[in-house]
Every structure is written in C-alpha cells, then in structure tokens.
C-alpha cells in the first residue's frame, strides 16, 4: 500500500468523523421528534407520530415568544444596519490619530461576552429611564433590541467595511463634477454600491437577533422570546416536543441561510459580469482616458 493511499484513507476517515460529529447530534435529535415515547429517544423506534408538533401550536407562551422574537429581530435590523453603516463610513473618515481608539470602542462588543452586554444594558437603562421619568420605556422588547443592537451593529459595520474597501471614489468625483450635491452622491452612488452589503447585514442582523440568548435573557425582563421560552422548557424537562420545535427552528434557519447564500451568489455573479463589461469598455477607450481612470482608482478608500 502506498503512502499516498494511506493519506487518502486517513483524510476520508477524518472527513467522515468530522461531519458525523457536526450532524450526528442534530440528526438524532430530529429523529426523536417523530418517535412516540414521551422521553426523547431514537431507539427503539416505537412508532411514527406528529403529535409532538401539534402540541407546539397549542402552546401559547411559545407562540408569544415567537412573535416577540420576530418583532425584536425586525427592530434590530432597522437599528443595526443604519448604525453599522454610519460606523463604517465614519471609520473611513475619522481623524487618523483617533482611529485606533474609535476602532477599539466600536469593535469591543464583538469580543465581549453577551451576558455582560445584557447586564450593562439593563443596569444603565433602568436608572436612566428613572432619572428622566420615562419608566414606560424600561421595557423588555426595547431593552433586548438595544442590547442586541450593541454588538449586531458591529457585525454590520464589519460587513460594510469590507465592501467599502472596494469603493472607488472616482464615481463620486465624477458625480460632483457634473454638479451633484454631496447628499445626492450619498443616496445615488454610495448606497446603491453598498446594496449587497446592506442585504447581507440585514440577514446577518436578523439571524443573530433571532438566535440570541445570552444578551436577551437579561435584557428581556418580564417579556419572553422564543429562545428564553425554549431555554426554560429545556431546563424543566426533556420532552420530544422540544425536539419537534428544534426541527422547525432548524428548518427555518437552514432555509434562511440557504436562501441568503443563493441570493448572494447571484449578486456576485451579476457583479463580476458587470465588472468584466466595464473592463472591456475601458480597453476601448483612448489611452489618455485610461490613465486618468487609473489615477483615480488609486484614490479608493484607504483602510
């Protein structure tokens, strides 16, 4: 047996183990959702049932949590995408000596454990709403939104930053030369250029919000979300109804993730096609025009 063959065998063995570890537990949990015994079990498989799914829809606090999760997710998208966008644009323009400190501040939530963000959000806003007499704003939905937006905005900012690295300011200058205002440049050039990043940021923001537990469990106060209800149920005891819920949640997230990848891939293909067309158009230009274009291309945002 050659050493090459041994290498291939080892690799295959490792790949099988890796993906078995990755999918095995989820698969086993999935099977328990369809088995009749009231304790989640795979084997012996006593009979196929969909009862555990029926139970879920009758569960009112679960449905309430699901509603809140969607609501908070939508709020977080509406808050985090603009905040992350502003954070990224400011990053490209901020005074060079302040950039290090600014970067540290806005990126720190990514490296902070979620429980700590939840705790500080609750402590801070409890007293602030009290001083300002706005106690009615001390509410779980609002606080969970603020707490999650703290770090999800940073995810969004990182997405925008990587897109802005490829931003060519030559279009901006051309528009200004043609008499556009700065505000028009922002809405008609920068935002369309960032559209794929806005889409990515919105999806990532929603998914991060929807599956978040650590920050939410503190910030949600007396309200509930799907994850907090779920955690409570799991701690109370093991039932296949939770497996059934898991199957549904996994189906939703996986469908979302796949849809997102498909849309992103299509967007990428469109973009490369456009770039290729642009390059072909450029080669047809006179040499003088090409040299100015190259000159401007060097002025892309420095990062």
């Amino acid at each position: 047996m050659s050493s090459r063959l041994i290498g291939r065998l080892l690799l295959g063995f490792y790949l099988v183990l890796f993906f078995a570890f990755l999918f095995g537990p989820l698969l086993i949990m999935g099977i328990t959702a369809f088995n009749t015994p009231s304790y989640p079990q795979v084997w012996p498989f006593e009979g196929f049932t969909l009862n555990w799914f029926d139970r879920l829809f009758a569960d009112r606090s679960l449905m309430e949590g699901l509603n809140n999760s969607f609501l908070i997710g939508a709020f977080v998208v509406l808050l985090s995408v603009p905040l992350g966008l502003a954070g990224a644009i400011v990053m490209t323009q901020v005074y060079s000596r302040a950039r290090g400190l600014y970067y540290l501040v806005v990126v720190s939530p990514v490296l902070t454990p979620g429980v700590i963000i939840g705790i500080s959000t609750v402590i801070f806003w409890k007293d602030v709403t009290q001083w300002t007499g706005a106690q009615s704003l001390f509410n779980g939905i609002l606080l969970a939104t603020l707490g999650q937006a703290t770090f999800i905005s940073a995810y969004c900012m990182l997405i925008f930053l990587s897109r802005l690295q490829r931003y060519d300011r030559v279009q901006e200058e051309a528009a200004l030369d043609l008499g556009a205002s700065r505000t028009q440049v922002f809405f008609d050039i920068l935002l369309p250029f960032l559209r794929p990043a806005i889409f990515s940021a919105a999806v990532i923001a929603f998914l991060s919000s929807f599956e978040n537990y650590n920050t939410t469990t503190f910030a949600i106060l007396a309200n509930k979300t799907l994850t907090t209800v779920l955690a409570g149920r799991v701690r109370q005891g093991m039932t296949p109804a939770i497996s059934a819920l898991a199957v549904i949640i996994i189906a939703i997230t996986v469908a979302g993730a796949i849809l997102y990848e498909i849309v992103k891939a299509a967007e990428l293909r469109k973009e490369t096609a456009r770039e290729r067309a642009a390059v072909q158009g450029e080669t047809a230009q006179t040499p003088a025009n090409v040299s100015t274009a190259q000159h401007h291309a060097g002025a892309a945002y420095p990062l």
Partner: protein
Amino acid sequence: MTNPVTIAAIFLGPLLVTLFFVLLSKAERRRLGPSGEPGFFQRNGAPVAIFLLAAVGFWALFLIVFPQLYMIDYSFHPKLPQIKRGGPDDVYTLENYRYFLFGSTRDTSHWNTTHLYAFWITIFVSVLITIANFAICYPLAFYMGQVARPGVVLRLMLLLIIPYWINEILRAFAFRVMMGTGGVINNILMATGLIHDPIDFLGLDVALYSGLTYAYLLIMMFPLYNAIESLDRNQIEAARDLGAPWWHIHLFVVMPYAKPGIASGATLVFMLCAGALAAPLILGGPKTLWFTPIVYDRFFQAFNWPQGAAYALILLSACMAFVLLVMRLFKVRLSEIAR
C-alpha cells in the same frame, strides 16, 4: 442616583475625549492650510453628516461606552433598596469583590472556594476547548484551503454553513438527548452489554465539555479557512522541494501564515465558551461548576445586581486578558482579530 461627581465623569469623560480629538484635528488642519482634505460636513453634506454623527454618537456612547462605565461604577456600590440609593448608606465599597474572594462581604478569613474554583475551571476549560477546536478544525481548513478542488470546497462549505446558524440552546439540547442517563449513547452501550448501569455523562461534565466544543466548532473553522486559503501554494511547494518534512511545512509555513485567522478564531471561541450560559444551564449536572451561571444567579436568585455587575466585570477582565495575551503571543493587531 449615585454620586453626582461620578455620574458627571461617566457622561462627560467620553465627550471630553471626543472633543479633544476634534480640536486636535482642527488644529492640524489649520496648520496644513487650505490644501488639505475637506472637512467632515463639507465632505458628506450637512444632512448625511448629521445622520452619521447622530448614529455613531448614539451607538458608541449610549450603547457601548456609557453602559459599560456605568456598570463599573455600579459594581462598587452596596445592594440597597431603591429608596435608599443615593442616600447616606450609598457609599463606595469593595464588598462585591470581597464576596467573590471570601464568600462574605465582611469576613475575610476563608476563601470563597466554590466561586474561585468555578472561575478557574471556566478559564482553564475554555482554553482547552479552544485548543481542541483548533486541532479538530485545522486539518479540514487546510484540506479545503490548499488541497481540495474548487467544486469540492463549494460543497463542503455548504455543509458547514447549514449548521452554523443553529441555536446554542438546540445544540445543547441535542447533546442532552444523546448523553442523558436515558439517552442514546447509554442505550447503545447497555444494549451491547458493555455497561450495566447508565453512565452519568452530565454529572461527569463530559456532556458539558463536549457540548461546548461542538457548539463553537464552526466559529473556529471559518477564520482559519479564510487565512489558509489565501496562502500561495508555491510556498508549500518550495518548502517541500527543499526537503521539509510534512509537519515542518505545517508548523513553520502554514501556521505562521495563518496566524491572524488562528488568533481570530481562538479569541472568539474562548470568549463564547467562557461566556456560555445556555450550555452549562442545560448540560450541567448538580455539581457542575461554570462561572456564567453563577453570574446569572447573582441576578435571578440572589437579586443582588451590584454583585452581579462585579461578577460580570471579573469575567470581562478575564476575556480582555485573553485577547491581550493572544495579541501578544501571535503579534497580531486588533483589526486582524475582529473582521
């Protein structure tokens, strides 16, 4: 509510720092004369500039800096009923930190062994899990980044992305289904006659530690893959031609190159592990020690928020220390870790 001087410092301090930099940049611009870049308002137009300032100001100050500073201040106060806060009893105290060390707000004769040990175990096991995740992910990341054909990479990538978004609670639940005393693994072991009584994986912390390893596997995978993928294959070929054994190539060519990816994955996995809440709550046995549930109990069982804030800060400083250590060890900058 608390000392007005500290409150002023919390709110005005960051504003003064910002003002300092604004003035500094103004002075610099004046020195350079009119040839420099246009100012912030000029460059963005007034409406956009106002939006940018308002958004970043709200995020950086009201969501990040103020709450953190306020929590620090809060942790140095005693637990008081709402009515007494700001009164004569509301003094600065170290009692919350004393409680972490000694298990009492006054008596310092005994160590608070439970909490100290839980803290130590959390840090130590989180480091081990980080290393284990790196060891598990590295071969696949290398295979995908350097060896496999693009079509294979695409398919493997899809297989990795699908489970990436699955919730931490559900991962923990899946492990409990497998590892409970009536769980799948015990059933199989007993049916095959290998054991007679079920093994208590939950009580032995086997379930928790393997569940945590499982939960954050992909957090390590993606940065690692991204880093290895950009390595020029010629470097590996050159090393091989010069007679380097395979482990030399990994240790002295690939890993040093992938340093930023390793650092990024390691900090994230460590932070998520040390701050994990759902997994220890669900997979822990009655004797399981983990620091985050203790922080949680300060709030929801002891109802002692200042003490909870102190415990949260202790956890935060451990995470900060780890980030700094990784930056030192790997000689990477923060911008390479968080991307």
